[in-house]
Every structure is written in C-alpha cells, then in structure tokens.
C-alpha cells in the first residue's frame, strides 16, 4: 500500500466495468419496459442491475477516493459513471502518476 491516496489504474478499471454494467443494464430494462416487455429480460437484467449498483458502491468505498466521489455512486442509474469521471479528473488535476 502506498501512502499517497490515489486509486490505481486497475482499481478505476473495476469501477468503470461496474459503472458501465450499472447504466447499460438499466437502459436495457427501461427499453424492454417501453417495448416488448419480455419477463425473461426483466428477471435477468434486474438482478444484474442490482448487483452492478451495489458493486459500484462497494468498489468506490474500497478504493482510496474522496468521500464526495464515494457518495456520488449512491446516485441511481449513473452514479458510478459520475464518480468515475470525478475520480479521473481529480487524479489528473492532482498530477497523478500514470502506472
């Protein structure tokens, strides 16, 4: 563990994967709801979205991020992507060292 509180690139990649799944699965759910409304899609993507939402929050709290960035992940639907954007701009702004 380094003393500098900067999330690693691989850590942010995990946050990215969870965030994209969080938003994409919700898009699939809403599109399904508005169009064919197939119950199989709902019962498959529902748990996927729920897991991705919780995983995004958990990953954000395990990474060395600021409290504000962590709390952003609580925002439904796009919280993970907002937090990811904030983490990346903060890291770049603070002169973060590329891996």
């Amino acid at each position, binding site marked *: *563990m380094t003393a500098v509180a900067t999330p690693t690139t691989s850590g942010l990649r995990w946050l990215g994967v969870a965030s994209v799944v969080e938003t994409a699965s919700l898009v699939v759910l809403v599109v399904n709801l508005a169009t064919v409304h197939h119950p199989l899609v709902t019962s498959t993507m529902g*748990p996927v979205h*729920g*897991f991705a939402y*919780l995983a995004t929050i*958990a990953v954000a*709290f*395990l990474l060395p991020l600021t409290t504000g960035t962590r709390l952003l992940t609580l925002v439904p639907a796009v919280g993970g992507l907002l937090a990811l954007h904030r983490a990346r701009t903060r890291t770049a702004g603070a002169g973060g060292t590329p891996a």
Partner: protein
Amino acid sequence: MGKVLLSLHVLAAIVFIGPVTVAVSVFPRYARATSDHSVEVVALLHRISRVYAVLGLSVPVLGIALAAHLGVLGDAWVVASLVLTIAAALVLAVVILPAQDRLMGPPAEPSAVATRLATASRLSTASGLFSLLWAVVVVLMVVRPGSTTGV
C-alpha cells in the same frame, strides 16, 4: 426462472462467500507472523477478502430476486435473513476489511507490535462473528421456519 435463480443464488454463495470466510479467518494468524513470506500471504488474503466480498454482493441480490419471484419477500424468515446478511456485510465492510488494511505490509518497529497483535485479535473475533452470522442465515434458508413453500 425460479430454479435458475435458486441455482445461481446457491452457487454464488458457495463460490464467493466461501473464500471470504476462509480468507478472513486465516488472515489474523499470518498477520501475527513476522516472516517475509507472511507479508505476501497477508497481501493475497486481503485481496481475496476484498474482491470476493464485492462479488458476494450478488448473493443477496439473487436472493431478493428469487424471494420476489416466489412471493415470499415479506416472510419473517426472509426478512430475518436479510437483516442478518446486512449485519454480516457491515461487520465485513466496517470492521474486518479496514482492520486488514491496517495490518498490511511488513511489521513496524517493536513498539507497534502490541498494537498489531491487538488488532489481529480483534480481527479474529470479527471473523468468527462474520462466519457465525452467515451460518445462521444458511440455517434459516434451509429450515425456513413458518414457510409452506416446497421449493
């Protein structure tokens, strides 16, 4: 769909929660050790604890989906299981993982050894509590007191 959800729920519990239970219970023993080898073991156990803890979130999510599918989400045994699961998750996220974080890296100077051993001891207790909570949830899942479903 219910059988698929149940299979995934049980599979996720075995594959994801199992490693966390083992890793957090073995961690304190290696955190007390002082060899170079133990530093690497501690790092690996911490990594397993963290990664599988996140993956383990799929277990309650699949469980809630299954309970909703079966129409038993409001049943006492499901609600009790959820409360105990949240308690276990809090023990892991608030007590165990931060304490593991403090025990990472090589042992500090001799004056810090007592603190280190105290943290490791608290970690043993928390790990036992985590395992106990999960065991009670599993028993609730099998016995399902008050339930009439035959699934």
